[in-house]
């Protein structure tokens, strides 16, 4: 819809300008809460007005003017409560300085993201913190996205911002030798936001997945020489391209093998392919690049009919060696069923049976049940699929599993079931990050 898109574009620019200004002010004062406070009134006004009246010629200057004029008193009152008079004076000085030449404000959002993903910050709070500071999402919105009560989310955000201020966490892009490790934390936080958004199917505002892709684009734009950042953005785009095909018109779960490829977003796929090519040309592959390559192989298989299952197994071997994750081992086994048959896949799953991390993991039991059904071990298949059904929380996935159970032969039948039946429909299990890429 035209107007919907104009609205989104206006919001996008408001968020972009807000993030730049917060990053600029916070990098100078180290006080994230005060920086957000100083701009919050203006940002709220921009979110209200720009979609109606259009985006002003200089968005940053507009925000700064409103921040100084209308929001100044309120911000001052709140800021004195939260951080003392000395900091308010400093923030006011910075606002004045920024307002004198808003076009010359450097983009420090990357430094802000590195501060937000600093190892001294609780892992679980890195993604919400970055989403709030860089995109202006409210504690209420973040609470809904991360399934935390709004009050608790608000308190945690305040605590973590105080921590940044008091512990002296720097706002800077790390030096070259530290960069790979620290960039991992930034990418992990962004990807965690994407994984949260993956399950949102009816576009409630804000779409976390979209915001995560946006952050990924910011990182790639600001760090063009980091192949893993491109790998992660490619991975998100592959998953996003399939979003329209993941549910049928009546809301039913559609596994990868049954998805209507005409509903895949070709632009997003092309962008993902290009990013992945650039990333792999740049040097050794990390976790995100390998996962993106697996998605690329699935696309080549479904779109061009290429026989990519052996390549997928090989990529999972590589990923397993890198991560040691039991979920990667599970996905590898599911891919192995396509090259070596369900018996080989089940044999590969046996060592995982003792892993208690998988005992409550629904996709493990769904995949196991599908493989057992394919191998004709109906009784065991019924047990595994029933367990998967009990562990599923998504109604569409529950309906899907119920249908699979009903398709199992009635009587105990130890003969081979025909290839390509129930099991194939279930498709592969999710990736090690909890995303059902193959769904």
């Amino acid at each position, binding site marked *: 819809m035209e107007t919907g898109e104009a609205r989104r574009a206006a919001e996008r620019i408001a968020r972009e300008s807000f993030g730049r200004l917060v990053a600029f002010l916070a990098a100078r004062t180290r006080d994230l809460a005060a920086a957000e406070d100083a701009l919050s009134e203006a940002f709220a006004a921009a979110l209200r007005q720009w979609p109606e009246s259009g985006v002003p010629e200089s968005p940053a200057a507009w925000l700064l003017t409103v921040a100084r004029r209308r929001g100044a008193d309120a911000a001052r009152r709140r800021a004195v409560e939260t951080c003392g008079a000395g900091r308010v004076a400093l923030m006011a000085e910075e606002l004045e300085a920024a307002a004198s030449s808003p076009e010359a404000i450097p983009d420090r959002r990357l430094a802000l993201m590195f501060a937000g993903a600093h190892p001294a910050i609780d892992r679980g709070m890195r993604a919400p913190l970055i989403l709030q500071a860089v995109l202006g999402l409210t504690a209420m919105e973040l609470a809904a996205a991360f399934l935390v009560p709004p009050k608790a989310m608000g308190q945690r955000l305040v605590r973590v911002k105080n921590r940044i201020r008091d*512990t*002296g966490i*720097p706002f800077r892009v790390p030096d070259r030798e530290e960069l790979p490790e620290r960039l991992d934390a930034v990418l992990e936080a962004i990807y965690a936001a994407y994984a949260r958004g993956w399950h949102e199917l009816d576009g409630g505002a804000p779409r976390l997945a979209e915001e995560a892709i946006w952050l990924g684009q910011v990182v790639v734009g600001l760090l063009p020489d980091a192949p893993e950042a491109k790998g992660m953005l490619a991975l998100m785009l592959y998953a996003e391209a399939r979003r329209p095909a993941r549910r049928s018109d009546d809301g039913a779960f559609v596994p990868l093998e049954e998805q209507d490829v005409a509903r895949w977003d070709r632009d997003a796929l092309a962008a993902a392919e290009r990013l992945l090519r650039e990333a792999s040309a740049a040097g050794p592959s990390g976790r995100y690049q390998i996962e993106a390559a697996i998605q690329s192989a699935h696309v080549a298989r479904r779109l061009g009919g290429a026989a990519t299952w052996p390549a997928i197994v090989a990529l999972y071997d590589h990923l397993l060696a890198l991560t040691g994750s039991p979920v990667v081992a599970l996905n590898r086994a599911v891919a192995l069923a396509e090259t070596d048959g369900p018996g080989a896949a089940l044999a590969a799953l046996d060592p995982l049976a003792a892993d208690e991390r998988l005992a409550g993991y629904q996709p493990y039991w769904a995949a196991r049940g599908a493989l057992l059904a394919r191998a004709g071990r109906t009784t065991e298949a019924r047990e595994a699929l029933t367990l998967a059904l009990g562990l599923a929380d998504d109604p569409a996935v529950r309906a899907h599993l119920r249908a699979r159970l009903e398709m199992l032969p009635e009587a105990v039948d130890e003969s081979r079931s025909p290839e390509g039946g129930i099991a194939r429909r279930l498709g592969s299990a999710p990736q090690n990050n909890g995303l059902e890429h193959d769904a």
Partner: protein
Amino acid sequence: MRCMMLIHHDEAALAKAPPSLWGDYAAFNEAIAKAGISFQPGNRLQPSSAASTVRVAGDKTAVLDGPYADTKEQLAGYFMIDVPDLDQAIAWAARCPSARHGSIEIRPLAPA
């Protein structure tokens, strides 16, 4: 940013630490001096068996024979540095020879 760096040690393990530890400390102290980041000398403390803990309740002064917290790792010493940010403080904590035998707690001083 001025920080107190608190060195915590498992005392039994410290007693068995190799003699080279003290040579490492001499080099570490030299490096800190050379970097010009120390604003107050650090110190090694007597073991926690030498500690007394005092509390006053009403008009009674209670003296406890031992350290404040009865934990495996005990405060064993400290040093003070003035650095630009937490990353620098972390780098110096990691260089401290005790980081291999115990842990270093970084505590920024409250602004005056």
